[in-house]
């Protein structure tokens, strides 16, 4: 078969070309319409999931200190590991909608204060027990417990009462929250037998794969859970996650074919890797963003004109081009982008404007002493370089921005949330409410810009219980504008997830919710022999 025909077939199989277009262009190569149809059918079959085999991922973001306790998951490898053995009530799919997992039906009272989750029948844990409503309640209780160290504590704190009745779980909230199903998709809230109490890190769940070996920081291996309830996932017999924190080693392992997919491709080598045989780059715009944060309650950042001057003096496009290698989008000084439901795309984009920045700086009456930005290489990939670009563009506007380099070690305890002006990152959340509630509500623990605005808080809380999407969208637009114009957040860019896979991997689909198809790549992909 000619190369052109092969190429056309691969495009058609990936859905990049319609059937009509394929038949037309194949005809131009001298292939009859009947023959073209047969060919197309053969590749369409080839894209059917293949069962069996061993699928391997090489990942950054694992340490020897990782635990299988889902409450403690904080980096990429534990997240991906937990998504293989665990299953939540619901999941958020690539389109930003709710996918039913352990729950098969959700309903709420009109004020969004009472929620009912109907538990799917016959879902089996790896130890053979059947998932019950009591397991769900026990799991949520463990995370709700003030003594727990759960990363989901803030999410489940608003639940005042949980009851199980047959296969129905009823949750009562202190205040209405229309986003509760999205919150239940949080990756910490994996349903464990008996809530995992006493066996938090046992790795027993209802997910598509059972844990076989758990060597934190080295590798995690899994075998198929034979009685998994969802036949559209779990194609490979065995899957493996190998921790490869070094960028070069990870790329080499992929090129040598020792792993089938890797996360976090270094932006600097994307162009080089594109030319490598058998390897393709996959990227998707996510909700994660790289930020510079100012404490709105500390001088000189308590002056909104100064904050505005700094916001205006960032050359966002330059940062996306140079720091993200073009694999990202520019930010607009609020933590939401088009990957979120109910995003208002009519909010004007803030541009780099030297004249306006200079004017705002003069208006602020700042004494001209150095404005110190604290930054560590580990704040986000390319943080030092981004800070240097910021310094250059700010100095051009006459703002005396200076960089103070901090060590990675202890950055999150000694600098972030402590220093008045520093670099940081956010991973994004499934819904707008959760992002704003986590970091911009006056009372939030992680309010890392010390932004306190009672009107903002009131709108945020009102929006939670608002079930009308049009009104809700208007409220979120209001919040975004407030933060954009008065907040302490400088958000120059949203980073894409840039990953790479080998050509024999089938079933890859972009998912903006998280790395490696929201941690499900190993379960959803298969190996074409």
């Amino acid at each position, binding site marked *: 078969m000619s190369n052109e025909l092969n190429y056309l077939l691969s495009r058609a199989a990936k859905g990049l070309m319609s059937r009509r277009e394929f038949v037309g262009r194949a005809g131009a190569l001298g292939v009859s319409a009947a023959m073209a149809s047969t060919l197309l059918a053969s590749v369409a079959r080839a894209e059917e999931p293949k069962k069996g085999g061993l699928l391997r991922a090489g990942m950054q973001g694992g340490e020897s*200190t990782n635990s299988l306790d889902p409450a403690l998951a*904080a980096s990429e490898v534990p997240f991906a590991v937990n998504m293989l053995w665990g299953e939540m009530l619901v999941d958020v799919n690539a389109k930003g909608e709710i996918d039913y997992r352990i729950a098969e039906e959700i309903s709420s009272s009109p004020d969004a204060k009472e929620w009912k989750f109907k538990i799917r029948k016959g879902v089996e844990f790896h130890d053979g027990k059947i998932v019950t409503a009591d397991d769900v309640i026990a799991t949520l209780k463990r995370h709700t417990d003030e003594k727990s160290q759960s990363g989901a504590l803030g999410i489940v704190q608003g639940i005042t009462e949980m009851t199980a009745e047959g296969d129905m779980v009823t949750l009562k909230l202190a205040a209405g929250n229309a986003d509760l199903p999205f919150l239940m998709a949080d990756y910490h809230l994996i349903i464990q037998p008996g809530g995992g109490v006493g066996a938090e890190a046992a790795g027993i769940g209802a997910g598509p794969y059972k844990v076989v070996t758990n060597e934190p920081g080295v590798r995690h291996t899994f075998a198929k859970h034979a009685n998994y309830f969802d036949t559209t996932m779990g194609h490979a017999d065995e899957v493996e996650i190998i921790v490869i924190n070094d960028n*070069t080693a990870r790329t080499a*392992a992929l090129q*040598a*074919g*020792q792993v089938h997919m890797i996360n976090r491709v270094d932006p600097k080598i994307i162009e080089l890797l594109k030319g490598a045989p058998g390897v393709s780059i996959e990227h998707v715009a996510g909700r994660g963003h790289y930020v510079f944060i100012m404490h709105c309650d500390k001088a000189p950042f308590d002056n909104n004109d100064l904050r505005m001057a700094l916001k205006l003096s960032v050359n966002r496009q330059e940062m996306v081009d140079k720091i993200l290698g073009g694999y990202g989008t520019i930010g607009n000084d609020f933590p939401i982008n088009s990957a979120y439901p109910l995003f208002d795309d009519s909010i004007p984009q803030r541009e780099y404007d030297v004249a306006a920045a200079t004017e705002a700086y003069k208006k602020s009456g700042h004494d001209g002493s150095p404005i110190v930005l604290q930054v560590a290489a580990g704040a986000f990939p390319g943080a030092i370089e981004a800070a240097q670009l910021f310094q250059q563009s700010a100095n051009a506007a006459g703002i005396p921005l200076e960089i103070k380099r901090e060590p990675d070690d202890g950055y999150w305890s000694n600098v972030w*949330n402590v220093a008045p002006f520093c670099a*940081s990152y956010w991973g994004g959340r499934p819904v707008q409410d959760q992002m704003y509630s986590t970091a911009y509500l006056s009372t939030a623990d*992680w309010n890392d810009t010390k932004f306190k605005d009672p009107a903002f808080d009131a709108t945020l809380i009102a929006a939670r219980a608002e079930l009308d999407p049009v009104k809700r969208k208007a409220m979120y637009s209001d919040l975004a504008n407030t933060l954009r114009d008065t907040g302490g957040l400088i958000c120059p860019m949203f980073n894409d997830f840039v990953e790479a896979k080998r050509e024999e991997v089938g079933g890859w689909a972009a998912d903006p919710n998280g790395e490696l198809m929201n941690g499900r790549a190993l379960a959803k992909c298969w190996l074409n022999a």
Partner: protein
Amino acid sequence: MHPVVTLVVQRIALGLLLLLAVSALIFFGVEALPGDTAQAMLGQSATPEALANLREKMGLNDPLVGRYFHWLYGFVTGDLGVAMTNGMDIAKSVGQRFGNTIFLAFWAALISVPLAILLGLLAARYNGRWPDRLISGVTLATISLPEFVAGYIVLYFLAVKWQIFPAMSMVFPGMGVFERLSAIILPVIVLVLVVLAHMMRMTRAAILNVMQSAYIETAELKGLGPLTVIWRHAFPNAIAPVVNVVMLNLAYLVVGVVVVEVVFVYPGMGQFLVDHVTKRDLPVVQACGMIFAAVYIGLNILADVVSILANPRLRHPK
């Protein structure tokens, strides 16, 4: 008692005393690190309640000196406790990692030590002529290359470009010996390149030093061949400095190869220690520190003992 025995016993006793001093240094040094485990573990996502609960649970509020003696007793009795971060048994996880490190170090040493000594002898034999220059030039070039550069070069050619050897040196329990050996070929190559020059140069220098002696001239005048002179008469008297350098390099192969481990994804002690330092997992850091210190001190004692035994003046005192 024979004076050599006294000397050896003294050296070992001194070594143990040194180890005790090191243990105190490690314990209090680690305690003095900024930040605490609870904060480092929970990272950016730490809420004040979770922090307070975790500190309480980990006993971070108990007095320091008491914790030191408790820890030392545990270490001596082989009870290393559990890791603060993931609750795994430290003795078990460290044991596995340490076994991997020793496995890699053993094979690297098995190749590099005889090779270095042989090359050193050859270089001394052909002192100043082309074999000497070639050996010195090549080994000095490989030692001058930073380990990760050597690692990446080897990785690029042998694993990615020609695909002869595996790019990752992942080893795990249940793997056969031959599988393990084929997995570690690339890191062994890099480690041999890194440690070769030091030992080779020292062997060469020590032998050349001895070669100036009168008894070598006697041996030559007896009509012995140059290699026999070096092997039978010069080398035994050059052992002491060579053994010291060999031991230093062996210690390095055990405690200093974190970069090579990272490049080849080898699950050894280095990366394990770094991970736990970052997360402020003090019990694990202290255990690793003590093991490294024990290896270093142990190998140095061994070098001293061998030097003492190799010295005829000490073996046969007047």
